[in-house]
């Protein structure tokens, strides 16, 4: 019945969805933002710790959401640790392209963590599900808002 949903809901996603890594509010952090997807009721909070070297020392999140958004948030936390903010942004840009555009339309976001990009491939299935793109990108929008000092991110305003 659901054959073509297996592309979207791959094992990795179901696993991260059920057992999200780096879940829960940490004791200490120095950047945070709340992300809101009014479309499905998802609300997540991302907690960032920027180290004295300017790199991301820790990322955690909490909140609830669908399998896609939880998995995306969980995967994101795993791959941002140790990155410079601008590396994180580049990864977000490339990931956003992956979720929304055909490969030939991806823009150049500078040098990327290829291993991270490979892992993020599991989420690229959302491209076939336009209504689910926001689920996949919510955590990233929120992380980006936290980096820029915005308290709230909403995917709702990013297009319709």
């Amino acid at each position, binding site marked *: *019945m*659901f054959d073509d949903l297996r592309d979207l809901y791959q094992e990795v996603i179901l696993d991260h969805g059920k057992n999200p890594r780096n879940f829960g509010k940490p004791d200490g952090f120095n950047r945070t933002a709340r992300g809101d997807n009014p479309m*499905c009721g*998802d609300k997540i909070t991302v907690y960032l710790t920027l180290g004295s070297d300017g790199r991301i020392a820790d990322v955690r999140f909490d909140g609830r959401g669908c399998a896609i958004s939880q998995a995306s948030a969980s995967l994101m936390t795993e791959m941002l640790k140790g990155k410079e903010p601008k590396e994180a942004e580049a990864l977000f840009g490339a990931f956003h392209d992956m979720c929304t555009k055909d490969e030939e339309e991806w823009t150049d976001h500078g040098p990327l963590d290829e291993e991270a990009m490979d892992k993020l491939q599991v989420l690229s299935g959302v491209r076939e599900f336009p209504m689910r793109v926001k689920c996949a990108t919510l955590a990233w929008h929120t992380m980006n808002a936290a980096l820029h000092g915005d308290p709230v991110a909403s995917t709702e305003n990013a297009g319709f």
Partner: protein
Amino acid sequence: MTRPATLLSDAPVTSNAPYDVERVRQDFPILTRLVHERKGRPGKPLVYLDNAASAQKPRAVIDAMSGLLERDYANVHRGVHFLSQRSTDLYEATRDKVAKLLNAPSRENIVFTRNATEAFNLVAQSWGRTFLKTGDVVLLSYMEHHANIVPWQLLRDQTGIRIEVVPVLDDGSLDLDAYEKALKTLAVKLVAITHSSNVLGTVNPVRQMARLAHEHGATVLFDGSQAVVHRPVDVQAIDADLYVFTAHKLYGPTGIGVLYGKKAVLDAMPPYQGGGDMISTVTFEKTTFREAPYRFEAGTPPIIEGVGLGAAIDYVTALGLDAIQAHEQRLLAYATERLREIEGLRIIGTAPEKAAIISFTIDGIHPHDIGTFVDRAGVAVRVGRHCAEPLMDRFGVGATCRASFGLYNTEAEADALVEAVKATKAFFG
């Protein structure tokens, strides 16, 4: 009772005849379509259970709108030429039909708006700004749609009214004790509560609520958006001062809604929007306005939409709202029972009197994921907050899955929903 013209047989059918849902379905062209067709894979038959968001349209409505445009269209009112007269007659006939549908005393009680949302904004800005002052209480409930929340918040920011909220009991019923207490203890000037909840299905005892409100000198506004579609409604029997609904949920077009108001209430309300058609005379110094309902209808009205709504009302009244209600109640009972087979499934909203709306959640699977899965099986349900975020908070859920039934739905479709949900559960293991 006569059946709508689009039904196939010529034999008159009385309301005692059993409700023939298969014949009704033939009136709705979209119901025969397949969804998710792809090359090499056949599509799935559409199972449309998103009626509370918007209903599908019968052939009679589609044809009434096309027919108007093919034969009789022009701008209405104030035109002396043939088409303008035709168009005006066809459009204004719907005011009579709406009056009859609601058992309003007269066509003059019927204001056409853009949708239900605009009707609430009209009341908030016109009635609210005139009759409410700082500290006056508008009494809402936790089961309101955003359309009946946000306009009052905007008014609150402008004028300092107070918003108080009647709680909802665990089964999804309105807390009537709290309602009565609020009327007794607060300076309630307006009760603005839904007749039927778009999430819980709960049908509120509006007659009793209006009586209590009037005993305490409050005006009452009911949101009939989910009520008129499922049952006969009589605004005089209810004794509603103001009553709102939206055409697209009543098998009619988008772009038109209805505000019913008692004559004295409408007469006391100043215009909302200004423009053509709602004025008597205009100079730059001074403009005089027409009487209600025309005073509230600025600019070119929703002509095509009015004609479509008229056809929709003809359609549902020919089927009979009693018959529709009986059919949907059977479906509701059946679907509820079948959904209860599914372990971990929680139905939110189990009030004794309900419209055919079932909101549910499933342990461990997010509604959004359920929505995507059942959609692939051809089943259209709505997932999310249903424009009722405070109610979601009340029940401690971020979102729900909502199956809402209409006059053309069948038990087999309820089965399809149940099977799709079961398969989804199996997938997530």
